[in-house]
């Protein structure tokens, strides 16, 4: 009847095409009806160095990386062992390697995984053919794994042609041949990796970055300005042509200071606007975020977090911009900070961020992370959508005061071009008309106006996600949520009922909802991927958790896995 999930790695050096193998396999499995996910590892080289595609295929939605990989396919061994810490293997794992690639490196062999010799590449290809067209080891290997996992060969062929795209016909033909040969060769291996039959359904295959981008488009974003930065660049690269095709604009700014100020300008012009960055860029934006708070200009800021501080590890994940997102900026400049709870939720949170920014005339920061953003995942396609909320633009019947403090703190913000609506956006302390003043009363009145906007913001049911009601509660956010949930499921099965609370709204903290969600929990552990326990301290700062709550914080870039969480919970009792 086959196993319900399978975790596979394709790894190899520059030309070996591990990523192509991974993409092809993921797509085929997804088309066949499995859930799946793929994360990618790269060496230090800028391009073409060694790489590894980390895949999972399952009959259930996948939300985190596996404790161990079942199958490690070495396209070659060139420097591949540097990934060892990120690719856990056990004695039950299988390593598929061509004896021609040489011995298994120590770092990998140490796992005691079973090594299976497997000649990869078309044994019949002539040396000339190989030189001309490459060895297609990767496609051969993908074909082999497809066969071992029991993926419908027709789906494999279709996925191959999608992945190859517009490549020349002979390239297509030779690759197709390699795919078949790989499958044929695998049939000779006595390995049982068969998956249980899939449960096909209409699904989407996308990355977290694409999901946020899509959400923002749904929310109405039609202007994006940004400066490239890993791991956020692919979000905007996906967005650029599509935004244009929707009649919007994507502008490459000279730096992040320009990017965020262009966003504020476009937003002032009346168009929902967004910027996309990672930690270093967010650091450069905090002055202008304070301006957006003070002048009350909507703006969406996506931060795809990476390992910090400073340049850190640009291509790898961490959750260490919590403090900056919530507290970054001089003066009292409260803003909304959200975090998607999964790749699938990126669609929801991306869209919601736009509505909140627009309706509350405030900057909204979305904290995604590399692990979510660059994960390719198969998801169920119809996630909830937040109800649309729009900017208040209609002029009041009485005299228009842009920054009136005597009414609803959300005041009218007519876009330029509106007759009789003229106002001057102001970052200095101002009176109700927006004229700079320096008195304590006006200062307090405007600070209170802005605070009231956030105080009246009610996230409703979307403040976060709660699973279970065990007396241990794991409180977490972002890419940690999936692993926490898997751990909770396992702990519950083992007789330790555990609940998981994943915050979607990190600031202002949804205190009442959080208290309800934690009711009855005898033990609270705040789990996050940074050294400073930033979320934990933020929660303590607002008495959202008792001083006795525990912290489970460690830096990136290794993802949290189920086994680690279970072990840590056990150790801390």
């Amino acid at each position, binding site marked *: 009847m086959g196993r319900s999930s399978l975790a596979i790695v394709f790894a190899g050096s520059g030309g070996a095409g591990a990523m192509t193998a991974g993409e092809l396999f993921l*797509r085929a499995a*997804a088309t*066949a*009806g499995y859930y799946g996910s793929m994360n990618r590892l790269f060496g230090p080289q800028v391009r073409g160095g060694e790489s590894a595609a980390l895949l999972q295929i399952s009959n259930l939605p996948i939300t985190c990386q596996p404790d161990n990989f079942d199958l490690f396919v070495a396209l070659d061994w060139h420097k591949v062992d540097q990934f060892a810490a990120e690719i856990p293997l056990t004695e039950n794992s299988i390593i598929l390697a061509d004896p021609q690639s040489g011995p298994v490196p120590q770092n990998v062999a140490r796992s005691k995984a079973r090594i299976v010799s497997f000649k990869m590449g078309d044994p019949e290809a002539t040396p000339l053919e190989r030189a001309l067209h490459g060895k297609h080891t990767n496609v051969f290997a993908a074909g082999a794994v497809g066969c071992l996992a029991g993926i419908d060969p027709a789906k494999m062929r279709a996925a191959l042609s999608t992945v190859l795209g517009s490549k020349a016909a002979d390239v297509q033909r030779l690759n197709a041949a390699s795919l078949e040969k790989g499958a044929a060769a695998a049939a000779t291996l006595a390995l049982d990796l068969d998956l249980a039959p899939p449960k*096909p*359904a*209409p*699904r*989407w*295959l*996308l990355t977290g970055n694409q999901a946020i981008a*899509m959400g923002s*488009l*749904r929310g109405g974003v*039609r*202007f994006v*300005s940004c400066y490239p930065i890993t791991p956020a660049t692919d979000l905007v690269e996906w967005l650029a*042509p*599509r935004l*244009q*095709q*929707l*009649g919007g*604009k994507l*502008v490459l*700014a*000279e*730096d992040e*200071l*320009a990017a965020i*100020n*262009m*966003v*504020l*300008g*476009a*937003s*002032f*012009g*009346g*168009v929902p*606007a967004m910027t996309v960055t990672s930690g270093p860029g967010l650091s450069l934006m905090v002055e*202008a975020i304070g*301006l957006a708070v003070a002048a009350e200009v909507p703006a969406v800021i996506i931060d795809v977090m990476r390992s910090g501080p400073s340049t850190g590890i640009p291509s790898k994940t961490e959750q260490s911009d919590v403090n900056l997102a919530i507290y970054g900026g001089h003066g009292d400049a409260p803003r909304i900070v959200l975090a998607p709870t999964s790749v699938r939720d990126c669609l929801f949170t991306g869209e919601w961020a736009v509505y909140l920014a627009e309706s509350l005339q405030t900057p909204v920061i979305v904290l995604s992370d590399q692990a979510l953003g660059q994960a390719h995942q*198969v998801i169920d*396609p119809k996630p909830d959508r937040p109800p649309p909320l729009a900017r208040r633009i209609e002029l009041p019947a009485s005299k228009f005061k842009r920054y009136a403090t005597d009414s609803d703190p959300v005041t009218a913000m007519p*876009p*330029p*071009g509106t*007759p*009789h*609506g*003229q*106002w*001057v*956006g*102001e*970052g200095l302390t101002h009176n109700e008309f*927006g*004229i700079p003043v320096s008195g304590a009363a006006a200062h307090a009145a405007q600070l209170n106006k802005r605070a009231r906007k956030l105080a009246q913001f009610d996230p409703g049911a979307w403040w976060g996600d709660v699973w279970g009601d065990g007396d241990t509660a794991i409180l977490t956010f972002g890419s940690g949520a999936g692993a926490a949930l898997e751990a909770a499921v396992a702990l519950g099965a083992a007789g330790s009922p555990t609940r998981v609370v994943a915050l979607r709204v990190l600031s202002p903290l949804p205190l009442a909802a959080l208290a309800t969600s934690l009711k009855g929990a005898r033990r609270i552990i705040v789990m996050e991927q940074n050294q400073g326990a930033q979320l934990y301290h933020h929660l303590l700062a607002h008495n959202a958790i008792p001083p006795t709550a525990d912290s489970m914080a460690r830096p990136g870039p290794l993802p949290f896995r189920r086994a680690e969480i279970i072990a840590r919970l056990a150790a801390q009792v």
Partner: protein
Amino acid sequence: MTENIVTAPNMLADAPPGTLSARDFHSGATPIWCPGCGDYGVLSALEDALATYGRPPHEVVLVSGIGCSSRLPAYTSCYGFHGVHGRALPFAAGVKLARPDLEVIAVGGDGDGYSIGGNHFIHACRRDLDMVYLVMDNRVYGMTKGQPSPTTEPDWDSDIAPGGIGLRPFDPLALALAAGATFVARGFSAQPHDLATVIVEAIRWPGFAFIEVLSPCVAFRREEFDWKASVHPVKQTIENDRAAAHAAILADDGFGLGVVFRDYRRLKPAPEPQRVTLAEIESEFRIGA
């Protein structure tokens, strides 16, 4: 990439019927400027120019950074934004890109524009959006009470740089030119009528129009009132020939007033992309049954 020659159609158009007066562009707010500050002259020239140009105040957006000069937007009846120090140009670019139908004018000082905002200045010249940038250059940080700016003379004595900063000042016109600006002019706040004429031309220019305005600071640079004796019209407006424009700017004493350079050569704009719907974009993600 092939080039287009723009003939700037609205440059040739007549001024619209004079239904608006300078007063219509005045907000009535009291400037915080020192009595005698050059910026008063700029404000009145701008109001005149806008009246002459003839779009109503609600279709005009004035964007500024921080500094004495950057206070200007609130003194007009237009839409405006008084942002953070040095970032007027990217904000203005955002407005223009999102709302090409609006008339966008960025204003500010030499500190705002050439010091902290220097990068946006050169990139705005290169980006060549259809907007105006007007710098009130008093060769000092007025608002922070008298420090040398990038256009200050090297031997100007101040508390923060006793004996002078000792650096050759920027020539903003040369910088703009080297960065690719297509319209470069100089005005003088004490000649608001001529300045208004230049501003009207700048508004009509179908690209980025840069106007450096000599605008004395009465509080910290009293000697700048002698500029009256130094200014003179530029010899000629150079068209298209950037090398000649550089030579003219370098040969000038820094007090030549008028439009210095216009470049009619433009890159062909990219073709409009095909339109799609949100649903079509979503369908790209679809996989399986």
